[in-house]
């Protein structure tokens, strides 16, 4: 036991860390403290800066400013080796070991017991077996790592890390691909390691698990530190508020009142629409001239809903109607044909074609909709591109520039232009304001309102609750891959949304503790 007294410096101390990628400030003045023997949850939505923080601490990214101390000793800003040597080990969601080697070989990779230059297999296996026994694992260490479940691979990775004399263990979403029983095993090991004085950073978006295992919670949002709390004294509602709400000001909907939207015509409707293991069947009505917000935590089924609505994912049950007529949405092409548009969250991988020009990216969906045999002439393309570059104020205003060279906000505008050019009836926007600078942020929100006033139907996903509250006529709240509540009119405010997100989970957590 080496539980350090309170006077000793914390195991890992991060002070005022900043990190930018180009114009995007991924981390701003973030502090983080990990004490010996504690399990510390690091929470935040996508893009909050969790992985950047981990990579800066482990020296994968050089930091722009700030200090990292391990056991009171400062670590140089650009030293992955030093971080390792000082005892920081990271186990990622995708196990970074070699599945084509045996468990024992993985455990002792690079440090196999040797005699006369020959690996002593039997010795290595014996030590591997003893090492894993510490973790309550009794398996054939000569078998290939890849032949075991992800849980065992995780434990192997942790065992290797701990055996490499790790003092700080960072687990990045370790439970994402584990079932309940495997999670229990992993938690048992984590508690045991914490007792031995190892500090564990636990990154997860499963709040139940966070409450079950962690001693302390640090929340990041938009690259800033929101706060550090004791898990025991942090109500779930408060935690979700820390993760989502920008400030606690109770913004109410600036949009139409509850009575007005009933009168509007239904643009598209979904009855019992869903897909097993993806999103539970839901009912959703989208009306012309109306913004519907989708709120919920990461992994609650927001993006999944969007993809089903657009046709990027096939539903396995339920009925979709467009302007009252039943339709089949089997592919994005179907969605486009019915006048839907979808701006995905991952702009770079799912949105833009980086190499092509702004003009080509803008006309892409329209051209796909028109078909091969009706090409847009170069003059029509130029005209369309010019119109939207001007209308959305895309900068630089050069339609012939490869879109990959534009900033995130302008790429987002190009994607919006791509869909507006198809004269859609419904636009699905997944995190339209993520990762773009403040100015463009406000513009996109203004655009959403204007489009809606023009009669377009919008389905918008955002982690920024006050943003959702500002432009939504109705808000659908999701939790655990199901639609749990729909708020309209006066009922739309940050507090109600937070309550809906937190409600059932809190009850479940109480049951778990009882």
């Amino acid at each position, binding site marked *: 036991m080496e539980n350090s007294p309170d006077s000793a410096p914390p195991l890992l101390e991060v002070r005022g860390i900043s990190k930018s990628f180009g114009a995007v400030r991924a981390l701003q003045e973030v502090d983080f403290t990990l004490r010996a023997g504690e399990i510390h949850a690091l929470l935040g939505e996508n893009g909050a800066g969790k992985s950047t923080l981990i990579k800066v601490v482990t020296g994968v990214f050089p930091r722009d400013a700030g200090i990292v101390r391990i056991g009171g000793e400062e670590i140089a800003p650009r030293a992955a080796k030093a971080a390792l040597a000082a005892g920081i080990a990271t186990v990622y969601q995708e196990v970074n070991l070699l599945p084509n080697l045996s468990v024992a070989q993985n455990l002792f990779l690079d440090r196999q017991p040797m005699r006369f230059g020959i690996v002593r297999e039997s010795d290595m296996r014996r030590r591997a077996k003893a090492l894993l026994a510490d973790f309550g694992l009794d398996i054939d260490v000569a078998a290939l790592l890849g032949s075991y479940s992800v849980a065992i691979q995780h434990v192997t990775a942790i065992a290797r890390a701990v055996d490499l004399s790790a003092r700080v263990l960072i687990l990045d979403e370790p439970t994402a691909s584990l079932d309940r029983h495997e999670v229990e095993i992993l938690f048992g090991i984590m508690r045991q390691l914490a007792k031995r004085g190892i500090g564990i950073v636990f990154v997860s978006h499963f709040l139940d698990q966070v409450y079950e295992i962690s001693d302390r919670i640090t929340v990041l949002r938009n690259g800033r530190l929101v706060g550090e709390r004791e898990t025991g004294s942090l109500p779930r509602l408060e935690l979700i508020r820390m993760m989502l709400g920008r400030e606690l000001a109770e913004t109410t909907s600036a949009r139409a009142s509850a009575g007005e939207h009933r009168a509007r015509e239904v643009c598209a409707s979904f009855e019992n629409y869903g897909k097993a293991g993806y999103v539970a069947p839901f009912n959703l009505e989208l009306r012309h001239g109306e913004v519907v917000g989708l709120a919920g935590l990461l992994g609650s089924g927001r993006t999944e809903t969007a993809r089903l609505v657009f046709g990027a994912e096939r539903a396995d049950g339920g009925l979709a109607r467009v302007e009252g007529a039943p339709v089949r949405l089997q592919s994005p092409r179907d969605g486009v044909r019915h006048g839907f548009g979808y701006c995905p969250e991952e702009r770079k991988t799912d949105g833009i074609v980086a*190499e092509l020009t702004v003009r*080509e990216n803008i006309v892409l969906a329209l051209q796909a909709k*028109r078909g091969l045999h009706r090409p847009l002439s170069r003059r029509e393309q130029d005209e369309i591109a010019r119109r939207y570059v001007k209308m959305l104020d895309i900068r630089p205003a050069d339609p012939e520039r490869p879109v990959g060279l534009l900033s995130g906000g302008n790429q987002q505008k190009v994607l919006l232009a791509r869909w507006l050019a198809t004269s859609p009836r419904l636009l699905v926007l997944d995190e339209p304001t993520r990762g773009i600078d403040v100015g463009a942020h406000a513009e996109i929100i203004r655009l959403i309102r204007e489009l809606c006033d023009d009669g377009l139907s919008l389905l918008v996903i955002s982690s920024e609750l006050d943003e959702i509250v500002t432009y939504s006529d109705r808000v659908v709240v999701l939790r655990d891959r199901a639609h749990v509540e729909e708020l309209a009119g006066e009922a739309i405010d940050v507090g109600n949304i937070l309550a809906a997100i937190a409600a059932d989970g809190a009850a479940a957590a109480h049951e778990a503790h009882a």
Partner: protein
Amino acid sequence: MTALLPRRGLAQILALIVILAVDRVVSPQFFDLRLQDGRLFGSLIDVLNRGTPVALLSLGMVLVIATRGIDLSVGAVMAICGAIAASLADTHSLPVVLAAALGAGLACGLWNGFLVAVLGMQPIVATLILMVAGRGIAQLITEGRIVTFSSPDLVWLGNGAVLGLPVPVAIALGMVILTGVVVRGSALGLLIEATGGNARASELAGVGTRAMILAVYVWCGVCAALAGVIAAADIMGADANNAGLWLELDAILAVVIGGTSLFGGRFSLVLAVLGALIIQTMNTGILLSGYPPEFNLLVKAVVVLAVLLLQSPKLTGFAGIVARLRRTKA
């Protein structure tokens, strides 16, 4: 139509001029042309004529590569279609022979496209299957012999002349124009470039990416079939073992020289064909120079290296930095 011959073609045109100049040095009669029996003769015509099969292959290959794919089977498809044409030539009319051969090429393309677009196989593995099996199929068709024929129609296809140009050259020219009109005259070009540039994003934008991929492999198969028929017509016979052997590599090389990245996206038909001509000009020059043909392979290797170095991201990145430094200084 800047897309048909973009500004970036300058490097390829310069390369061709340099190689032509070198050829002129090793062979003083290189630019001589003479008209005989209504057909032009000379080293330049020879370059065009000999370069036809690879030019045709590169025409299909460039579209496949633009979708981020590759087709290793074109040499084998040449052998299959050449064998079919040769076996049918003396018993059937030219339209039947051509229909059979081109139909076979189309079927081969469909097979490749099915494996890649529908089953989602990696293109290099998917087309490797037909690369290996195709030559076997061709040998089965010719029953292991070299099938010769004497049908004047098919022979004309390999050795005749139209408006002074050898028929193969005229066919290749026609195919370049046809492909250009189809690809750039419709939306196909844009959609292929989008598919190759980012298939996921294109799919989500409503582009039928599978149909695009299927289409380019089919067209690649048809081009290979035509190349196979011409190669057979040229030697008045089909040699299943050697027809089109290793030409898939020349076709890929031609595409790469033409500036289309193996990572897909932007492509240029004209520059790919120009790449094929650059390769053939080198080949012919080395033959004329009297050096042993082994040098051909070495010179080719040096050219490949030079082209790939020019395209490597590290070098372009470096060039970009240099350019930026210059600009800031200016």
